[in-house]
């Protein structure tokens, strides 16, 4: 994964430096304000930590061992911008001091692992853990998937950079000048190792470190009494917003006409309704009778509150409000029931 000097053409290296530079600049700008507080040592130490964890030999199922980059946990703890800086620092030290990865290819290595990897890990973690409770197992799975997805995206990008070399750079005889394998060989060859060994190492390390941090340093992974209080405040705001929207539902009766496509079979027999449908449909000629399928299936289900107005309510506005409360109640009840069922099916939430 650490591409050495000589494998990529200078123009590819220049493009990758050019692609990485705005990300480094934006990350520095975003973190600069915090950089001279606690973030300065934290960023350096996280970079150093990432460097050291890359040397851990992680035993994997099947008897082999793998190394993790640490991009998954860095993105979860630091966020994507600070993470891309920390991993870039670790890669720079590796390239400059330990000769692991080239100097001309440093832009490509940083783009693949630090930039794309950090954003992928951060996005995957937040999408998969969306709405999960602080102690939910789903968060650990999300951390594992974040590491796994990030490292595989990085490998895919490196494979593409390798694979385009023989297409673009070859001598008069057709001999490739840099990495010699085309995309159809480079991608499977690179991904085979990363979808299995390297991906597993990153997933194990991300999930393991996330579990450790959640137990011992919960604030670092966004799980703290403060975070919970924040969530409660957020929930209170949501309840307030919901109440406002409920009170505003009678505004619906101000809308004139019928929503396009929500016609009943009876509308086709009513001349005023037919005129409205034709006007809303670009004066397209309507069939004389309701379509056969519409007529057949229209009465399959009769709603308990037709047109948002129970028959015993005379006020349309009150009918709208009552229907909205009824609908919201059903959704909240279903969500509560689902949550109870999930808790019953899962006796312990913490692995």
């Amino acid at each position, binding site marked *: 994964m650490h591409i*050495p000097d000589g494998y990529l053409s200078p123009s590819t290296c220049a493009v990758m430096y050019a692609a990485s530079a705005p990300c*480094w600049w934006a990350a520095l700008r975003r973190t600069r304000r915090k950089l001279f507080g606690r973030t300065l040592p934290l960023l350096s*130490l996280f970079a*150093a930590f990432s460097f050291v964890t890359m040397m851990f030999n*992680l035993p994997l199922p099947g008897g082999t061992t793998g190394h993790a980059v640490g991009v998954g946990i860095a993105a979860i703890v630091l966020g994507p911008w600070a993470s891309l800086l920390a991993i870039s620092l670790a890669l720079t030290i590796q390239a400059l001091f330990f*000769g692991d990865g080239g100097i001309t290819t440093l832009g490509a290595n940083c783009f693949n692992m630090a930039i794309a990897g950090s954003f992928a890990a951060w996005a995957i973690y937040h999408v998969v853990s969306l709405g999960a409770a602080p102690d939910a197992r789903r968060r650990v799975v999300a951390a594992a998937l974040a590491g796994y997805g990030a490292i595989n995206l990085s490998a895919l990008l490196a494979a593409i950079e390798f694979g385009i070399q023989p297409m673009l750079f070859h001598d008069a005889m057709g001999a490739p*000048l840099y990495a010699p394998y085309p995309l159809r060989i480079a991608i499977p060859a690179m991904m085979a190792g990363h979808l299995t060994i390297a991906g597993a190492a990153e997933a194990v390390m991300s999930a393991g470190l996330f579990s450790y941090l959640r137990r011992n340093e919960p604030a670092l992974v966004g799980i703290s009494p403060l975070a919970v209080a924040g969530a409660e405040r957020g929930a209170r705001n949501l309840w307030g917003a919901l109440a406002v929207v409920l009170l505003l539902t009678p505004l619906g009766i101000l809308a004139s006409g019928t929503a396009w496509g929500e016609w009943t079979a009876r509308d086709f027999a009513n001349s005023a309704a037919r005129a409205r449908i034709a006007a809303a449909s670009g004066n397209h000629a309507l069939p004389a009778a309701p379509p056969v399928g519409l007529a057949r299936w229209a009465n399959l289900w009769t709603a308990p509150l037709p047109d948002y107005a129970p028959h015993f309510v005379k006020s349309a506005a009150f009918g709208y409000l009552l229907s909205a409360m009824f609908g919201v109640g059903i959704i909240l009840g279903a969500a509560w029931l689902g949550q109870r069922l999930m808790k019953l099916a899962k006796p312990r939430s913490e692995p």
Partner: protein
Amino acid sequence: MSAGVMAKTVRGFTQALGQTLLSEHAAREHGLLQALDPRVKLVGLLALVVAAALSRRLNVMVALFGLGVLLAVASRLSLLALAKRVWLVALGFTAMIAAPALFLTPGVALYRLPVGSLAITVQGARSALLLIARVESAVTLSTLLVLTTPWMHLLKALRTLLVPVEVIVLLAMTHRYVVLLTETANQMFESRQSRMVGRLSGQQQRRLMVNTGGVLLSKTLEIGNQVFLAMQARGFRGEVRLLDEFRLRGWDYVAMFGFAMVAVAAVVAGR
């Protein structure tokens, strides 16, 4: 098995620490490259690395590699250490990657294997040789830079390439903590290894490694807080200043001219 994985990790840490000491020692030698201004050395050797990357001719790459060997000798670097640390590692890795290209690159058959229908092609052989020669020459030249320049001087020289001062401070701190955390992790593994009897299952080994990583992360954060407090106690208020003690001398101008001439010649001859 369990001891094997831990021993392998400890060996990796020891090698990294050894490499750090070796670099510091080599940078203090009184040799040709050590005597040069770090900025001249950084720009000059990087220009040669780029020239090697741009070259399309084997003889130019071999010439650049030969120049690297001469510079190493003139800088009193051990060729044996370079061979073990750089040349053999790069050769083994690149040869492994390039070997299938001998057969997979389409072209004129150079040698047909007696068994099966596989043939080494002229284009495949040329491609593999170019790759190995380019990697060897580039890695040799970049290693010369690292081995003959103290780390702090190298970082300050990066200002020549317009690297922001914050990045230089971050790199300097990161490097310091890499050494510290490597030492800490090494001690943690050694102390655990000395208390281990019997064999651990794969799952236990994974738990051990991940927990060690977690504890290391906790220690890392603790150190971070201590460092921040220490920085504040010493009067750090968010401004970073680097002492720029570099002065170009006559010999540096000669070297600058030499690097530029060789790089231009290599680019022109390598087209």
